[in-house]
């Protein structure tokens, strides 16, 4: 029992960070699942993080209102980004969103009144693990419903072939706009969750490293089902910890190699609903050849 408690104490924070990263990965997944590669989750996270940190410090609001506020802030940022960038084609969209991440850091650095500037900001509130679990569960439930709704079906169609989807009456830009608003809200909430987990945020908290981590988590876990990003975030967060105990000297190298190997052998990620269908089809072919019933 004591060992269990020790384990929990040792890896509790890893689990907390995995859950926060899962929120970021879901935010990235929200737009990726409509065929848009965007790094702007970092921007939404910064908006949500600083908004939440400042509002608990100065407005004295509680944890959950702060999450709500961060979500709204992120959603607003998401709709602004979508309005400005959705006209760009996919390659430019990716570059533009990356540029926006760089601009965000400069903005954060130069608005010390809002963000604490280079010195960062102490966050006078922390999020209990239980609340974090509930938060992630709520967000996951939203994605679960989305996946099974008309929006989910339309999003998949837009992702696979936007032109074809449009000739069936599905407005790709409209779907992608919605995706950005969802991504913004979830990213904002994630940013707040990170602020409450770290209890200290600075311009470096929301920067390139985070952009690459979240996109890697999403694609590693699989960007074709909402469960993929959650799995990916867990794996990607646990990797450094695992590697540190196995190969402490070259843990980063090992982490990179693991990422590389998974992506080469499972380019669609760890969770891939299509692979299930393909396996079923292959089985059916085999049994058809053998002349037996399925």
């Amino acid at each position, binding site marked *: 029992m004591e060992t269990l408690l020790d384990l929990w104490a040792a890896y509790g924070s890893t689990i907390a960070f995995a859950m926060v990263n899962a929120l970021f990965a879901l935010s990235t997944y929200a737009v990726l699942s409509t065929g848009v590669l965007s790094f702007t989750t970092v921007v939404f996270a910064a908006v949500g993080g600083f908004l939440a940190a400042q509002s608990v410090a100065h407005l004295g609001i509680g944890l959950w209102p702060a999450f709500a506020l961060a979500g709204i802030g992120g959603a607003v940022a998401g709709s602004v980004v979508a309005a400005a960038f959705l006209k760009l084609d996919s390659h430019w969209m990716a570059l533009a969103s990356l*540029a926006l991440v760089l601009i965000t850091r400069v903005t954060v*650095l130069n608005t010390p009144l809002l963000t604490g500037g280079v010195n960062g900001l102490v966050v006078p509130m922390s999020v209990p693990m239980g609340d974090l679990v509930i938060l992630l569960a709520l967000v996951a439930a939203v994605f679960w419903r989305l996946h099974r709704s008309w929006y989910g079906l339309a999003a998949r169609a837009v992702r696979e072939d936007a032109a074809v989807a449009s000739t069936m009456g599905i407005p790709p830009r409209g779907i992608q706009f919605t995706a950005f608003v969802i991504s913004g809200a979830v990213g904002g909430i994630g940013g707040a969750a990170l602020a409450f987990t770290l209890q200290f945020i600075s311009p470096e908290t929301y920067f390139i490293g985070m952009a690459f981590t979240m996109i890697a988590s999403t694609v590693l876990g699989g960007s074709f089902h909402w469960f993929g990003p959650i799995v990916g975030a867990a794996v990607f967060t646990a990797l450094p910890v695992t590697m540190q105990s196995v190969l402490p000297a070259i843990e980063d190298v090992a982490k990179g190699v693991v990422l590389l190997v998974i992506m080469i052998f499972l380019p669609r990620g760890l969770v891939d609903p299509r692979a299930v269908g393909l396996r079923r089809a292959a089985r059916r072919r085999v049994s058809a050849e053998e002349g037996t019933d399925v």
Partner: protein
Amino acid sequence: MILFLEQALNGWALGSLYALFGIGFGLVFSTLGILNAAHGTYASWAAIVGYYVVERAGLPFPVAVGVGVAAGGLLALAVDQIAFQPLRSRKAGMLGALITSIAFWIILDSLAGFATEQQSLAFPAASFPSGMIDIGPMKVGQLQLIIIAVLIVCTIGIHLLIQKTRLGTAMRAVGWNEVAAALGGVNARMVILLTAFLAGATSGLAGVLAGAATSNVSFTLGEGLMLKGFAAVVVGGYDDVRGTAIAGILLGIIEVFVAQYVSTALRDGFTYSLLLIFLVARPRGLFGSAGFVRA
């Protein structure tokens, strides 16, 4: 006035490094359709290899440049074949390649740290043309002039290569559509390899020169070039090397003058605001071609 001219030249030389790096990055993006996060590490490694050629093997600087360039190119080839080729054959698209490039970025960056013992090294001042030349009342660094000249030569060379040669036509064809290029009798595999090598080599060149010019040979070298080189590519338009070159130089000069006459704190803000303006107002960059039609 002399100060103004000297600073303009400083900015030009600095921007030339951004541009030189950006050309390689843009080449890979436009021809191979890969947003390569590992591209910065080619520059770091080229500089590190070049440093050891001078420091350990005692060879002259031009040899170090040559070896660094080759190292950058070969590294790019290796990364392409290990990280991108398996995905290419499965049509995994830009996304998969981005992730494998992130993997290589992590690996190569951390190995570069080991190669330099986590230190920032510098080429001995005596080993490269580090002196000053007087041009009238102006003082100009020899290496600065070399960097400026190298960018001009590389830009013209690569532009001619892409626009005027059979290989260039093939590269553009691959850029549009690999399948179509293969059907059209172009050996797509060969074009991909050459493009990867060329991109790695130019970035390697930028790396060695930047390592010497800034007295900073370390695993952080590439990251700095990457951010600014990336900005040059976006402002210039990723499918035209001339645009990248001009945008890079422009960014360098703007940086220097904003720092001198406005504020250093706002310097990067200026650069990235320019980036944002281009993204929104002229998303195809300075020379970018009109949108192509896809149905």
